């Protein structure tokens, strides 16, 4: 290892670990690394890509063996590594110019004790995708704004029969926490208070109760408890679901897989129409392994955030950019309009709370049980898991 690190002439090797969003992810990074290395001959970037399924397993092993990568892109779990004192601060891994370009809202969402550790790469919010054809058939003219309207519309669509369902509610283990959060935030709930996880709140109970009502009254697809998001989105794309909460990349998928679908996006319905929705961002974090690679890391990330590279990344994956300059570019795209508009009302996961990981896991494994068990029982078990010592 070198002491001075990063300086010109000194050879530095950077390990970069990124998850795969879709089929354009890997080529993008390969190109980027190549371009970067062409400019910085002394820095060797070793790219490792993993599927979202496996990246957590791989990371756990790496951390356990003190072999963390230098740069990691991950969801909000990334900045959370700071709670084990593993990370550089956010402003240490990018230049001040880059740092300033980033939407403060996103930075804030990943702060621990007021300190940011991750630099947001992409962001997204949720919105209601709906099938206009089915709406017409069911005689619904307006997308629902409140839960009651949603329930009513969904029931009407379900009543069409023929394998068509009103509302797609994915509570399977893939991303149950997202669906739950949309509903709970819509009732004004918040998952964290004073550093503690607050799951068992009246608001959340209300949300879960209404979700159960949706299920019980046949407004959703069958077996929502065991339905994962990705396959359900595909069903929506195939025109068999009236409404579903979706996020920006779905737009591209619909265009690709079923361009004939007549669809539209509306803001997520809430309990009484208050605009609020779930916001999510992914982050870059840099691991501090006492190796003085900080400068090289910063070089690389700055390169990534160069307008041209960064916009291409977001275009590829179909997300909302997290930088101010990026957002300006994105505003030109009509399909992102609703998402961009809902950004100010977006509420994020309390992802930097060390207990969020297990809480989110508890949602994944338990919340689907509202289909069969009482809301009380389910919510208590999630709260218990959230409270467990890490």
């Amino acid at each position, binding site marked *: 290892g070198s002491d001075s690190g990063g300086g010109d002439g000194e050879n530095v090797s950077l390990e970069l670990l990124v*998850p*795969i*969003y*879709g*089929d*354009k*992810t*890997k*080529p993008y990074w*390969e190109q980027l690394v190549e371009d970067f290395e062409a400019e910085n001959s002394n820095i060797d970037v*070793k790219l*490792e*890509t*993993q*599927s*979202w*399924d*496996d990246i957590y*397993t*791989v990371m*756990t*092993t*790496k951390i*356990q*063996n003190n*072999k963390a990568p230098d740069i990691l892109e991950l969801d909000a779990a990334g900045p959370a590594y700071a709670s084990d004192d593993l990370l550089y601060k956010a402003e240490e891994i990018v230049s001040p110019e880059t740092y300033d370009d980033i939407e403060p809202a996103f930075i804030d969402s990943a702060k621990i004790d007021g300190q940011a550790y991750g630099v947001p790469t992409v962001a997204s919010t949720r919105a209601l995708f709906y099938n206009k054809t089915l709406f017409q058939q069911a005689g619904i003219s307006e997308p629902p704004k409140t839960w009651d309207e949603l329930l009513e519309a969904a029931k009407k669509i379900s009543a069409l029969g023929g*394998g068509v369902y009103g509302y797609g509610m994915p509570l399977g283990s893939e991303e149950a926490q997202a669906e739950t959060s949309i509903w709970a935030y819509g009732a004004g709930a918040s998952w964290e208070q004073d550093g503690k996880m607050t799951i068992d709140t009246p608001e959340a109970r209300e949300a879960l109760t209404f979700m159960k009502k949706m299920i019980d009254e046949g407004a959703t697809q069958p077996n929502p408890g065991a339905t994962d998001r*990705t*396959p359900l*989105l*595909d*069903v929506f*794309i*195939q*025109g*068999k679901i009236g409404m579903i909460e979706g*996020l920006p*990349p*779905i737009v591209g*998928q619909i265009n*690709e*897989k*079923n361009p004939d679908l007549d669809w539209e996006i509306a803001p997520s319905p809430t309990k009484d129409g208050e605009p609020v929705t779930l916001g999510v961002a992914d982050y870059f974090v840099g691991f501090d392994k006492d190796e003085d690679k900080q400068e090289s890391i910063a070089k690389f990330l700055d390169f990534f955030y160069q307008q041209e590279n960064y916009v291409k990344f977001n275009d590829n994956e179909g997300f909302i950019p997290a930088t101010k300059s990026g957002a300006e570019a994105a505003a030109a795209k009509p399909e992102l309009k609703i998402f961009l508009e809902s950004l100010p009302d977006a509420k994020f996961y309390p992802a930097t709370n060390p207990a969020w990981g297990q809480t989110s896991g508890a949602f994944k494994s338990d919340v689907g049980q509202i289909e069969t068990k009482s809301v009380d029982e389910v919510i208590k078990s999630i709260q218990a898991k959230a409270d467990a010592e890490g």
Partner: protein
Amino acid sequence: MSELASEPSTRGEVATKGAVLDPPTTIAGTGRATAPRKRDRRRWGLTIVGGIVALVFLAPYLIMLSGAFKSRQEILKVPPEYLPTDWKFDNFVTMWGTPETPLPHNLLSTVVISLCGTVLALLAALPAAYYTARHNFRLKLPFMLLVLVTQMLQPTVLASGLFREFVSLEINDTWLAMILVNAAFNLSFAVWIMHSFFATVPKEIEEAAWLDGCSRGQSMRQIMLPLVWPGIVTAIIFTFIACWNEFAASLILLPTDTNQPLTVALTRFIGQYESAWQYVFAVSIIGILPVVALFAMIEKHLVSGLTAGGVK
């Protein structure tokens, strides 16, 4: 079919080479024109049953095959179609050039790791299986159990420790690491399978070889191996397939994409919000074919009443 064609020439052989439970009865070779025909009809009946069995075992892979030819639009169609309306034969071509993963490398990786892993496992297992089948010694049972115990551990659970070990040995992210892991993980089954086969060879046959001047190695090569060949073939297939499909350890131990085997490469087709199922299926089919080909090559060795006539 070719089997059937060669049938008439094998006169009375049917009786000795027949199935184990086929009554070693009056299977006439010549003369009686009626008997063979009756038998033929029965055997065609078996073929029909066989066809049904084959269909059951192939069903999921037919789905896979049909999926591999479907287009991106069609693969998740609701309701589904059995066959693609638009046959995308080029899925099998384009996937090699897909940006997600360097498939030729991955295929090579899988082949090298599986072949070497199988050879290594077999080389280590053979002497142990042989010795334990032939000799009684005090630590025999403990040894056999130790071998077995190693197999009871979850690869997923061991991966972390392996990672640590190989990093310190500086062979992390090399084929060698995975060859060692595969060999070790499959060793015990190879030992146990071959052990049970070695035990069926009458010991006098081997003793005769020693008296004929064979060293242990020679008698192993010239006498024992040919006689336990069905068992070895079983062990080879087992080990090879296990190596071929290994995932958990490769995922952790081989971060570099060009080193990775197909199984890990496949996960690259699984994105966050959508998966390229047509490629996943196509690659899976490509993954199955070499194994089936290997099997076709050595299948005939599975069948052979080899030890008949050796001792009385």
